């Protein structure tokens, strides 16, 4: 186990009481328990409050553009599969601006873990609706209440037979750590949608709101049963299941390239001999 101090201590710009603090705490604990040294992890994010995470932990970090963390994260893994890749961002970043990339990442199935802080609101830009904001939720930007039906990330992911789909709550750190561990260990694209309350701008889905509703999936729950998982993914209201909803082991994109097994691409020599023969083909 690696000492948790190895992952650093930073002052954050997050509001006191924001769920993000606990997600960060859980991530550090997870990495420590998984014995993952900072140098071996690449932490990739987009833009938003959650996406600032790489600045608050000692890992290799790539803080990219709003919605575009996933494309970059996948390519990091393809270029150097020795790195453990963790993508982390908010619901707006991943499901709004980055919606197309989210769908593509599920299909591509590169071995990485996506930690999606789902506070059902835009935090950094001060409280506009996000794709996961519930219908009728009144915000400054949606004064008449949100009329779009909410995006259900776990149902979409399961619908697409995503390799690993989980839901968690920042208010239950031990459970969150256990889910993160399974996600990172899982070979393939792993989605962890984490309820992480925004105490400043979401007055509906508060800490208490989630606490009251979230319940852990029972020990005998079968995450390989697609129909059952689809049903659980629809459960969002008085009761919300948390835990690993669905697992579908399938070959990852990175494992399809034999030459990647030889190590990072930047260490692989340029084969001018073969290139010379290729040029002969044009003669």
């Amino acid at each position: 186990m690696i000492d948790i101090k190895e992952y650093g201590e930073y002052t954050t710009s997050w509001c006191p009481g924001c769920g993000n603090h606990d997600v960060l705490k859980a991530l550090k604990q997870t990495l420590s328990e998984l014995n993952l040294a900072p140098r071996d992890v690449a932490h990739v994010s987009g833009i938003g409050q959650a996406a600032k995470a790489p600045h608050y932990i000692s890992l290799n970090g790539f803080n990219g553009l709003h919605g575009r963390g996933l494309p970059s994260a996948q390519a990091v893994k393809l270029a150097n599969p020795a790195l453990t890749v963790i993508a982390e961002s908010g619901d707006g970043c991943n499901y709004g601006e980055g919606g197309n990339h989210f769908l593509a990442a599920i299909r591509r199935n590169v071995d990485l873990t996506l930690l999606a802080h789902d506070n059902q609101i835009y935090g950094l830009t001060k409280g506009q609706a996000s794709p996961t904001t519930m219908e009728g939720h009144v915000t400054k930007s949606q004064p008449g209440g949100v009329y779009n039906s909410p995006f259900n990330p776990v149902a979409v992911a399961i619908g697409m037979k995503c390799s690993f789909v989980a839901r968690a709550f920042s208010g239950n750190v031990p459970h969150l750590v256990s889910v993160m561990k399974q996600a990172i260990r899982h070979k393939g694209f792993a989605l962890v949608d984490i309820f992480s309350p925004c105490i400043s701008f979401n007055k509906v889905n508060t800490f208490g709101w989630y606490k009251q509703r979230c319940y852990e999936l029972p020990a005998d729950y079968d995450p390989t049963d697609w129909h059952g998982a689809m049903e659980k993914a629809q459960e969002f209201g008085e009761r919300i299941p948390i835990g690993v909803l669905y697992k579908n082991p399938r070959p990852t994109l990175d494992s399809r390239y034999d030459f990647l097994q030889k190590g990072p691409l930047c260490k692989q020599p340029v084969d001018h001999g073969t290139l010379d023969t290729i040029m002969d083909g044009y003669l």
Partner: protein
Amino acid sequence: METKDKHIVIGGEAGQGLVTIGQMLTKALARSGYEVLVAQHYMSRVRGGHNTYRIRTGNGEIVSPVDGIDILVALDQETVSRHKANMTESGIVILDETLDPEGLKAVRVPFKELAPRPIYQNIAGLAVVAELLGIGQEVLQKLIRNTFRRKGDEVVTQNLTVLDEACRWTEAHKSSCTPLPPAEGDSGRMVIHGNEAIALGALAAGVKCCFFYPMTPATSVAQNLITYAERMQLIVEQAEDEVAALNMGLGSVYAGAKTLVPTSGGGFALMTEAVSLAGVMESPIVIVLAQRPGPATGLPTRTEQADLNLALYAGHGEFPRAIYAPATVEDCFELTYRSFDVTERFQTPVFVLTDQYLADSYRAVHKFDLAALAPVAEPDTGNEGDRSYKRYAFTEDGVSPRKLPGFSEALVLADCHEHTEDGHITESMDVRVAMNDKRMRKEQGMRAETLAPRYFGDEGASRILVCWGSTEGPAREAAARMRRKGARVGVLSFTQVWPLAPESFMPLLENAEEVIGIEGNATAQFMKLIRQETGFKVHRTVLRYDGRPFTPRYILQNLGEEEG
């Protein structure tokens, strides 16, 4: 640049096989030792429409497409009517006996008799043209064997029989066309087009990742890399869109892989935010921008040079970049290769700005000498480094030591915000200014290595044609024709359009009586850039933006000169 050459235009609908005839004829000519230059005009549709495949061939320097047609291979009636006005005095049309030559001197071929099935008509057509030009049958036989080997012996034999019969049939018609003079060139050259050369240049430089979203005329760069991906061990991934493509590119570059992202105008427009990210993250990335006419979807399969400003100003904020503009197929190889070195050393985006005409233009070139290439800079994969490492350390030349994640104890933090030396977000005014200055200092280093423009012509020419990228060839040939009439004309051709190094060309421009800007857009973007950087205003411009490449005739006519 005295040329004894012929211009062969094969015209017809998409799907009629004109590209097959064209490519085989091009190869046969090059393998016989002739120069070739291909310009392809096609419409944005898979079947139908009117397309042409144009080969200019002969001895001597052939650097530009021309207008006058010596041999017109008409696969349909429309080809005859569309192009008859452009026939040279001795020009002939080759067509099926059922088509009407519309008064042109013609070789009417009984294709039905010569080819047992329509799919063999291509070979019959090829045979007729080749025989008229005087190309040896052996070259064609070898070509057919190589092309159809994979389809089995029967296909090869059938094609050879058609070839033989068609050649024999043509013998009786040989008097209708003067053959090419004996070839003077080297027969052992590669026949490749601009985008193939870009792919080869990238492979030579050690490209390991390519992310793309299909868009004409950039797709063939990725397509070529895909063809060699397994043998050269690289990853080519079709992204969900261009936004993803470049953001993926920056991810692979962060992890140390040399990466190429090819696209065209509309796709590049989507990438501009990530270009800016490359600027602030100081990512070494090579972007190939293959121009076609805009705005928006414009003329998808035609050519233009109107995205210079886009490449120059793409991305919000200020950061340095380099832009190369290949003029020839050899340039495509060399400048792409060079781009990988420059981007690696200066850690900022580098562009290869090509266009549809060059992308699709086949030429006969000598095999690129890989052994002669200076090595490309490599990322630091050493295992020295500790937690005190600063990704964006302030340095005199603006270039910070770049480490890769996972190779040492050094942690690499790349960030999109303004950041401190160790990559953390900052709002400090002082750090902001210092970091911006650091990044911009790299431009001085790049400027010191800017390629001087090429000059063709006599010393002290009174008129100078200024051009960039693929317009070089037509400008050179127009100048040559003017020189033949006694004018003292030179051509100044830029293969790097940013940053500019005025000391390398200003004396020339200042000493000329007349400086004429020639470029493929409506607003003379490059001439304005020269003025912005030097205060020098060109005296005249010749601009083309009808989707077609420049020809010497177009330039001369617009200058009010006789064609010569």
